[in-house]
Structures are given as structure tokens and as C-alpha cells.
């Protein structure tokens, strides 16, 4: 019986952001950093800015059009110095000047600058929209007494206070889990985000909430990370449904999702109707996943693929593809070609010899003969 893993690998490759998004995520943050570093009206301190959010996590799912950037300031959050509300306003004013500097953002700014940039204040950030590129930057001011890699404080404009956050700690934790579990953690995160995007056009829970759920289940051993990805995906939805089933049965209640790093409630504004919609989708997705897994086990590959397509979208949308194309398969074939590949001491095949570890070259050979009758 064939395995479904390659189909999932193909799905994940289809969920990579387009090249122009990756380029924007790579090129824009340094330009913004340089601008703010030299901006006298909004003093920042070394190292001025840092990428955060899904691009920093290496966990974007699909055509992610926004990049989160932390902007480091000097200050004392306990004294509300500078004033949280004022900081957003000052950063907004500083970024508004971008529209008068046609060269500040290089190739990302052409023609009439004012017509191309849209700048707005949000609750905790200033939002810059590059209309011509349909791309967004969310600049989040922060006081980071011990640097970006330690807990820091971000402003809450509504309450005019600084609140704790540890976005880069979360990135580091994801990286650790991902390494421990052979790359499956981020793949699972990407799949869940895509599931949400595909199944829920509105009332979507935030990506960070989904990430927090994932981290909690891994921490508490609720997910058997030795399982293959398709099984894990079904189990992940099952964990979510089971965790929140009691809350769903409690009229008007909404779950409180804990920040995976600092423990505070990160979903205080989750509305009951939105939560109910999410749970309906999770239940449907879990049931479809279970059926698809059973179909695959039973050798009903067409039904299984149709099931996964119901969950993730199919050939028409370019997500879960019925038939794998040769080019994709060849890209997977290359690392093991005898004569050019190397094998690790555990037996893993790689096309480039890593600098550390024991790797043995795979001498040329040809496997012999035809299918055994």
C-alpha cells in the first residue's frame, strides 16, 4: 500500500508563499530598519528592529501578505515611559514621513509615494500597506530591556499601558520542538493555519492562538509526534475539539488560550460566535481526516485523496493534488542518487555533505532488474 506522505509534502510545497512575498519579507525589514535607525523624531536603540511573526517562525502558510517587525525603544514599562498610547502615535508620525522620501524604500517605492503607501495606527502597532505590492508591514514598538531574545513589552494603545510579550522566545521554542520532532511541528502549524484559511473565510482565530494550542499539546504529550503527518493532523484537530468541548457546551463561554511563553490569556477578545464557528470546522475537519485515513488504510486511495481535498482544497485551488507531477517527484529523487549523494550514520541520504557528522559517499550503482513477479 502506498503512503500518503508525498501528497502531504506536495501540499506543503504548494503552501509556500509566492516568491514575491518571500522577497518582500526578506528585503523590506532592513530598509525599514535603516530608515528608523536614522529617524531623529523616533529614537530607537540597537539593534533597532527585528523580524517577528510567521516569517520569523518560518511557518507562513500560503500567500502571507504581512510581516511583523519589532522596533526597539528605550524606556521603562512600569512607569509607562514613554506613554504607550503616545508611542503608537509617534511611530505613526515617523513612518508617515516615508511618504515624503521617495528613495527610502528603494524599489518598493516608485512613482507617487503618497499614492502607494497607506499608514494606519492599530492597537499595538503601526500598519504600513504597500498598495502596489499588496503587502503589509506591522511595526510593533517594544521596550526590550534585555534584548529581543528575552521577554519584552509592547504597547496597548487602548489601555495606555505596556504589556509583556516574548515573541522571539516563542520562535526559539518552535525551533526547538521542530528539531526534536524531525521537522513535523512547523509542518503541522502550517497545515492547521491553511485549514483555518481554507475552511473559514471569516471569524478566523489568530495564528498565534493556533500556535499556542500546538505548543501546549506537544508540551503535555497529547500528540504522539512519532506518527506520520496525516495522522498527526487528525489528532491535532481531535485535541482541539476535546480541549474546548466543555466550553462549547457552556453557553456564552469562550476559551482562554494561554500564551505559551508568559502564561497570560492571549484570546481575551475571542467572541462566542467566532469560537462556535471554529469548533464546527474543527469537528468537520477531524471527522473528514479520520475517514480519509481509514480510506487510505483500506486502499481506497481515490476516496482518501478526495477526503483530504475536502479538508485542504484540491486540484482546482492547487492545494492537495490528486496526481503528483514528475518535476516534484524528481526534486525529491535527487538527494539519493548514487554517485552524487552521501549517507549519514543513521542511513539518511543527502545531496550535500554536511560539515559535521559521519557521511559516506554513495558510490554509483544501478539497481538491477524488473519488478519481481
Amino acid at each position, binding site marked *: 500500500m502506498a503512503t500518503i*506522505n508525498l501528497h502531504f509534502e506536495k501540499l506543503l510545497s504548494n503552501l509556500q508563499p509566492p516568491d514575491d512575498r518571500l522577497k518582500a519579507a526578506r528585503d523590506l525589514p532592513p530598509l525599514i530598519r535603516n530608515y528608523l535607525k536614522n529617524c531623529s523624531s523616533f529614537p530607537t536603540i540597537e539593534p533597532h528592529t527585528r523580524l517577528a511573526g510567521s516569517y520569523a517562525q518560518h511557518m507562513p502558510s500560503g500567500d502571507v501578505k504581512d510581516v511583523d517587525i519589532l522596533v526597539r525603544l528605550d524606556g521603562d514599562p512600569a512607569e509607562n515611559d514613554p506613554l504607550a498610547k503616545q508611542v503608537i502615535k509617534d511611530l505613526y508620525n515617523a513612518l508617515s514621513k516615508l511618504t515624503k522620501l521617495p528613495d527610502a524604500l528603494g524599489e518598493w517605492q516608485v512613482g507617487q509615494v503618497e499614492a502607494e503607501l497607506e499608514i494606519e495606527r492599530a492597537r499595538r502597532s503601526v500598519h504600513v500597506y504597500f498598495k502596489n505590492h499588496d503587502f503589509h508591514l506591522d511595526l510593533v514598538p517594544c521596550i526590550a530591556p534585555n534584548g529581543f531574545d528575552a521577554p519584552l513589552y509592547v504597547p496597548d494603545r487602548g489601555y495606555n499601558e505596556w504589556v509583556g510579550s516574548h515573541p522571539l522566545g516563542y520562535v526559539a521554542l518552535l525551533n526547538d520542538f521542530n528539531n526534536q520532532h524531525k521537522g513535523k511541528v512547523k509542518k503541522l502549524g502550517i497545515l492547521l493555519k491553511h485549514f483555518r484559511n481554507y475552511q473559514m473565510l471569516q471569524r478566523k482565530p489568530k495564528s498565534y492562538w493556533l500556535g499556542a494550542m500546538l505548543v501546549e499539546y506537544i508540551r503535555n504529550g497529547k500528540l504522539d509526534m512519532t506518527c506520520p503527518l496525516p495522522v498527526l493532523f487528525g489528532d491535532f484537530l481531535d485535541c482541539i475539539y476535546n480541549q474546548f468541548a466543555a466550553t462549547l457546551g457552556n453557553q456564552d463561554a469562550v476559551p482562554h488560550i494561554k500564551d505559551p511563553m508568559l502564561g497570560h490569556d492571549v484570546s481575551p477578545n475571542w467572541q462566542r460566535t467566532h469560537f462556535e464557528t471554529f469548533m464546527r470546522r474543527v469537528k468537520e475537519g477531524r471527522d473528514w481526516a479520520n475517514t480519509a485515513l481509514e480510506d487510505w488504510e483500506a486502499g481506497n486511495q481515490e476516496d482518501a485523496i478526495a477526503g483530504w481535498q475536502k479538508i485542504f482544497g484540491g486540484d482546482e485551488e492547487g492545494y492537495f493534488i490528486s496526481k503528483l507531477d514528475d518535476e516534484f517527484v524528481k526534486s525529491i529523487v535527487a538527494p539519493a542518487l548514487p554517485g552524487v549523494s552521501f549517507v549519514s550514520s543513521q542511513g539518511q541520504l543527502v545531496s550535500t555533505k554536511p560539515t559535521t557528522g559521519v557521511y559516506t559517499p554513495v558510490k554509483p*550503482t*544501478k*539497481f*538491477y*532488474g524488473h519488478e519481481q513477479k
Partner: protein
Amino acid sequence: MSKNNKLLVPLAVQDLHIKKCFDGFSIKWLQHERECIWFGTLQPILDRSIYQVAIRYRKGGIPKVTIKSPSIITSAPHRYSDNSLCLYQPEEQPWYGNEIIAHTIVPWTASWLYYYELWLDTDTWYGPEASHDTKPKTPQVESA
């Protein structure tokens, strides 16, 4: 001196090379140490199956590789009738006892398993393969 007349590598030396290159391989001696079986594991693709491998070898003979678990499905290509793996074309590229198993047979086994995994997914063997004419497929014959 022809290649097959070169000095045969002693089993103990083969064992040293295998243990140097691959983790978790152990040797079981047979026939008063004239023959042996190495048991070990190979995981050709991260996150996929870990295969239990057995390599049976007698000095001067031909290594025979079988997969103990998980079971290789019966219709899998490139195996002999005893289910051992066809890792090379004996007529084009015979294996000689002066070669190092850790540098040939084990890496080829990992490569075979890699392509087997892809074959499971696609029903296509993407690895390099020797054409097989109408002659019956036979393993390399051991020299006397």
C-alpha cells in the same frame, strides 16, 4: 592482478568499517567466524520508516541484504526470488571481496530503501536501474 584476485578484506575489518560509518550495527558470527550477519537500522528519509536490515556475508562470498522490518511488500521491484535486494548489476559491476561493505553495500541499501519509499508513494522506481533483458534474473555467483 585482476580486481577479484586482490586481497580479500577480513570480516573483522569489514566490521570495523561498518561500525565506523553506521550507528547501531551489530555483528553475529557464524560458522566459527567464517561467516557473519550484521544487523542494523537505516532510516533513509527523516520522519519515515526505520528499517531493520540484515547483511549476511562470508569472506570471499557475496553480501546478501534482506529487510527484516517493516516488511517489504511482495511486488516491490529490484529483489531476487529470496527477497534479498538487487543493489547492483552483477554483470556490469560485480562486487568483489576486496571492497568495503560499509562503502558499497550499506549506502546502496539506504539508497534502495529511499527509492522504495518513493515507489510506495508513486508506483514508479525513480532510482537508477539496469535494464533487465529476457534472461532470468540471478544473483552474482560466488567464486569457489
